[in-house]
């Protein structure tokens, strides 16, 4: 079969219009390939849309998103918004993208860049998310920062007691998430500092298992939170949230360094919901399905010695960004460049075969 026969005009289809999708699209477009973005929502941006400011430097999320969008527009990358690809069908060396029974388009290469989902905190009922209004997730707190949602305590409370729980739905085999979500630690530090900036009298506690400050300047941020902001870090887990005095929550925890149980009254409890797979990749011989994840399903598996983007068992299918596992924005951007290079090599090899 002649591969070039099936090579469509648009060489690369990118599924997902978040930071990973946009950056991969830009990197490929800069290399001279024609690229399209398929985004299930009506707007580009992914989870970044909901963020207020970014660690470690506090850059406004909307600024970064604006820049990315501008570049995508400047390069005139065709956008298919509101289109949710749920099936990829292999035809020749290329792919046909489907949404239900509707074909959305064709491409020689598909890059999965459809990111992650946040762990549903309701599954950990003991923390009372959805039951007590003062229990928020980290994403909810960003919405509060963005003034899209009110603070869960009255405006009269100038010195709120605030607790952050790390590792909610990550590093938890019972929740089917054995992995470390890795950026919740620094997110909690960032949010704790933000709360302290807004309420200087606030008492802020972070309940952690291990603090994983792996990124550039994260450790410095942690120290700053301790020293400059007075955030208290307690190595231990929370037991459960129960109704406390007034509208407060009563929480119990273990301080593992002191080896003693503790309890306290909180005005706001923030759950650091971990990153979990947004979809389950079901691979068949000549088709790939993007399905609803089930308990214990993992991120997109890729092959290669180190960071690589080629999806296991699928020629011409690549994955970029956090759909392969938890990743920070700098990592997503670096990955986009690496994946673009891999895609370029693949397309060149395909053309060489076609010419020969």
């Amino acid at each position, binding site marked *: 079969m002649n591969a070039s026969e099936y090579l469509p005009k648009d060489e690369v289809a990118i599924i997902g219009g978040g930071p990973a999708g946009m950056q991969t699209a830009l990197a490929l477009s800069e290399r001279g390939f024609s690229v399209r973005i398929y985004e299930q929502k009506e707007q580009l941006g992914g989870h970044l849309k909901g963020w207020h400011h970014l660690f470690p430097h506090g850059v406004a999320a909307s600024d970064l998103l604006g820049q990315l969008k501008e570049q995508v527009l400047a390069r005139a990358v065709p956008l298919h918004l509101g289109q*949710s690809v749920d099936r990829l069908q292999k035809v020749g060396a290329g792919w046909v993208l489907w949404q239900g029974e509707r074909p959305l388009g064709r491409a020689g290469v598909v890059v999965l860049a459809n990111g992650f989902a946040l762990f549903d905190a309701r599954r950990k*009922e003991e923390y009372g998310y*959805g039951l007590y209004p003062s229990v928020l997730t980290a994403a909810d707190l960003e919405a509060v920062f963005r003034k899209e949602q009110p603070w869960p305590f009255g405006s009269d409370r100038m010195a709120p007691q605030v607790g952050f729980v790390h590792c909610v739905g990550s590093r938890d085999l019972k929740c089917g998430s054995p992995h470390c979500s890795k950026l919740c630690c620094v997110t909690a530090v960032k949010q704790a500092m933000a709360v302290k900036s807004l309420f200087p009298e606030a008492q802020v506690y972070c309940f952690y298992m291990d603090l994983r400050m792996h990124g550039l300047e994260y450790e410095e941020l942690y120290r700053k939170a301790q020293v400059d902001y007075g955030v208290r870090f307690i190595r231990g887990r929370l037991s459960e949230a*129960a109704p406390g005095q007034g509208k407060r929550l009563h929480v119990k925890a273990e301080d593992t360094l002191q080896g003693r149980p503790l309890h306290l009254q909180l005005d706001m409890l923030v759950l650091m919901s971990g990153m979990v797979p947004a979809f389950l990749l079901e691979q068949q011989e000549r088709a790939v399905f993007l399905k609803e994840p089930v308990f214990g399903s993992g991120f997109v598996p890729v092959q290669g010695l180190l960071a690589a983007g080629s999806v296991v068992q699928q020629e011409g299918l690549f994955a970029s960004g956090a759909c392969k596992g938890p990743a920070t924005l700098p990592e997503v951007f670096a990955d986009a460049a690496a994946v673009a290079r891999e895609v370029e090599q693949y397309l060149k090899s395909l053309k060489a075969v076609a010419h020969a």
Partner: protein
Amino acid sequence: MEKSAWFVWPFMLGFMFALVVLLLRYLWWLRSLWRRPSSRLLSRMFSKHSLLAVREIFSEGLLHLRIYKRNRRLGFMHMSLALGWFMMIVGGKFETWFHSGQFLHGTWYAVFFRYFEPQTAGGWAGTFWLHYMDLGLLLVLTGLALAIMKRIRKRILGIHSSTRHTLVNRVALTFLWMIFPLRLVAEALTFGQHGGGGFLTGSLGRCCFSSGMLAGLELPLWWAYSLSLGAFFVVLPFSRYLHIPTEMALIFLRHWGLRAAEDLQPEKALQAFEIHACSACGLCLDVCPAIKDHPFQSAYFLRALRSGKGWESLASTCLSCGACEEACPINLGLEKLRTAARGKIHEKHHAVYSYLPTVAPVETSRVDVLLFTGCMGRLKPATTKALKDLFEEAGLTWVHLDEQESICCGRPLSLAGRAGEASALREHNRNLIQGQQARMLVTTCPICLKQFRDDYGLELPVYHHSEMLWYCLRAGRLKREKGTACFSYHDPCELGRKSACYQAPRELLQSCGTLLPLEREQADALCCGNSLGALSLSLSERQALTSRTLKVLEVSGAQSIVTSCPLCQHNLARQSRLPVRDLAEVLAVTGLPEQHGQRTAALAAVQEL
């Protein structure tokens, strides 16, 4: 009249051997009774209890009605083997009596009667006995054919799993299978040569064995019959066929008021009879939620106890879900045996609770309900909140007994075989409960429920919240309109099989929505995998069981899974695609507002686009 022959000796020797061994074993098991005879046992021995025992032996030892109720084909197999053999034993006695006019004979006489008296006359009555004995033989042979079919293709008998046997049991099985075909051929040959016989043996003899050339085969066949009988009797006391006499003895002992000990004594008193009364019929296999992964089913557990080897791991991995005890056709106290075994493994465990503060009951005004949510209830705030809302709605006053701190009810220790160690906990809780003035104690935890009901001796009635809500519904204190919601209901082991509460949760759900039928529910329901019974089952093994249970519950059309145990809900909710809620949450107007997981909701939204 009676003539003896050498060939009866293999049978006689085997039979006498079995009798002596059985007698010795039974006497050994009952040794404690000789030392300390129980007056209760003696008084019951000569009362209607013995008649009741005979009736049970007839219905279960012969007719096998409980097996029949669960699985007709399997029940028929057991019935035809036991009843047919019984017919032949009784019939043989009467037949020899009838023909010889003498009641007592050597045991061998009735067994080999046809050889000695091939041409018995006796008019219509003689003919009756001939046909009657053939009927018994036919019944046994039918059972045998089914048993062979079961070994080849068990699906024919409506079962998925059958017991894998040890060598001695396979030897015993072989001899047992040989006995009746040999008897058929031996009798047929005798009748073929001498004439006469019933509808089976006579006809077979006339059409196949009348040739004079076969006359020389007659004696060897009777030898073979006697040999297989004798060999079977020799291995009987050491094989699972020991269950035949032991089951009967067990039924008598139970009716005479003997109870199994709390600690493990596999060679003593009722426990010994229970352990040896198992016929390995296999009913405990198919019902076990872990049949595909583990060999801890009761048939194997009891076999391990009989051999004294390997029972420890079987006892500590088993979930104690109670499915096998529910299915056991001879009602063996399997749960008690398992906890006894666990207690034996951990006999060095001695709990110390001297640190507990003494409870000074606070004087409170009289309330309707004393609510106890238990250790696990603490992890389920939505259930507790929903239940309190329902109390308000029903106009009930309540006190939440363990809102602040509480201690364990003691049942988890009992499930680990250390019931005695829990007495301090029970004492503590009993003081707490009895210090309050309330009409009833309501608990959201089926584990606490069972413990409070069975082991606390409380003066006030104890209810599970599903029972209490059901009473409220029936009394009109709660009113619900049937909505469009479709539920599948998970029966918690501790509430269903252990406390026989099936109806209340079902009627509650039917009052506000549609309850979907499931492949396995009520007494056959699967364990969620989170049972406190299992001590050493690993997380991945538990999660595999949970996903199997969820497959049953995620029946098409179900919008949510409902259960009524904090452990089940906690465990199922972590793994389920569908939302898993407590009964109280479903019933309460206020519950979690949006029940679908974010991932599910997001996907649904995407699919709508």
